[in-house]
């Protein structure tokens, strides 16, 4: 079968984290190709140079959120990150995400990340059924627009890895979980607004955010978790003033 890959254009120097919490960077040389993504590089290494390399990916097109890794110190979705955009001349350093237990090589345990979505009551809870039988939601209503702004989160964990507040306060729920909570707080059909606000208004919740805005800066979907967190801060402050928190 004729290969559809472009001709290699020199070699790329790549360092990849091997091991778990303890480990070391291993060096590889990978043929540099046109339109090559960081995920292509990792896949090349696993298929041609070292089949024991562990990493995660699924869709390859920026939908599933499973291939996030730290590339030259910054967390990125590797399937949609071209090598040419992050390493024009220098080497490529690929490591697992921060703030999550490292299982092996580039694979983190995402358990604690999604556990915080649960703590933030990130699941939809059906509310009372309206008399009409279904909720008619105006797409242009302010609340629906708030949902629209945050609903495309793919749960990749990049914001969580980039957040300094998570580093300082490991129990902090993190930008993704709080963003999820804010979309549900703006969902008219949801019946757990008060309990969710209580869940996110604690010490480890929205008020722990220091507004460094790394989540906004690094989110591959260009969402604004910081705006969602600010929304939760306002909502919980108003609820507290009214004695409803």
């Amino acid at each position, binding site marked *: 079968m004729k290969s559809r890959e472009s001709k290699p254009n020199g070699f790329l120097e790549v360092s990849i984290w091997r091991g778990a919490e*303890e480990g070391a960077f291993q060096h590889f040389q990978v043929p540099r190709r046109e339109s090559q993504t960081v995920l292509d590089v990792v896949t090349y290494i696993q298929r041609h140079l070292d089949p024991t390399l562990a990493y995660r990916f699924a869709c390859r097109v920026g939908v599933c959120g499973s291939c996030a890794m730290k590339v030259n*110190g910054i967390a990125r979705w590797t399937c949609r990150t071209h090598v040419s955009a992050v390493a024009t001349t220098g080497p490529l350093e690929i490591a697992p995400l*921060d703030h999550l237990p490292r299982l092996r090589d580039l694979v983190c345990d995402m358990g604690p990340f999604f556990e915080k979505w649960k703590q933030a009551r990130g699941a939809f809870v059906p509310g009372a059924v309206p008399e009409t039988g279904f909720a008619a939601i105006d797409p242009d209503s302010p609340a629906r627009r708030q949902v629209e702004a945050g609903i495309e989160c793919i749960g990749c964990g990049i914001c969580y*890895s980039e957040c300094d507040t998570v*580093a300082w306060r490991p129990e902090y729920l993190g930008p993704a979980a709080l963003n999820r909570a804010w979309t549900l707080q703006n969902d008219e059909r949801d019946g757990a607004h008060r309990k969710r606000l209580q869940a996110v208004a604690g010490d480890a919740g929205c008020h722990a955010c220091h*507004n460094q*805005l790394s989540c906004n800066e690094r989110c591959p979907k260009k969402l604004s978790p910081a705006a969602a967190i600010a*929304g939760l801060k306002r909502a919980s402050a108003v609820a507290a003033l009214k004695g409803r928190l």
Partner: protein
Amino acid sequence: MGALSRRVKPGHPGYWAAVLQRLSGLLLALFLPAHFALLGAGLHSTEGLDEALAWTRSPLVRVAEAGLVTALALHVAGGVRLLLLEFLGWHAIQKSLFSLACGLATATGLLFALNNF
């Protein structure tokens, strides 16, 4: 075998805004005890206050004063920026707000220095 260093510090405007907010805050917090000590000197004796006031007219202190005013302006403008982000959700223009805060602080510091020297 070694442990992976946790992270490279993010170098984007939001991060620098937070760093400057904290550093200027710390500087102002350090200044306050000195300020109160000087005021306290006046409670004990006019000579003590005069001595302390003479010290504040030394060139080094006057330069430091301009830095302090800049830090105060930066902290206030940065604080207003945070309020705009938190209460009005102006995240889309946060970088412009940061530039504005830095510009206002620099202008305030320069005006003070011009007036002071």
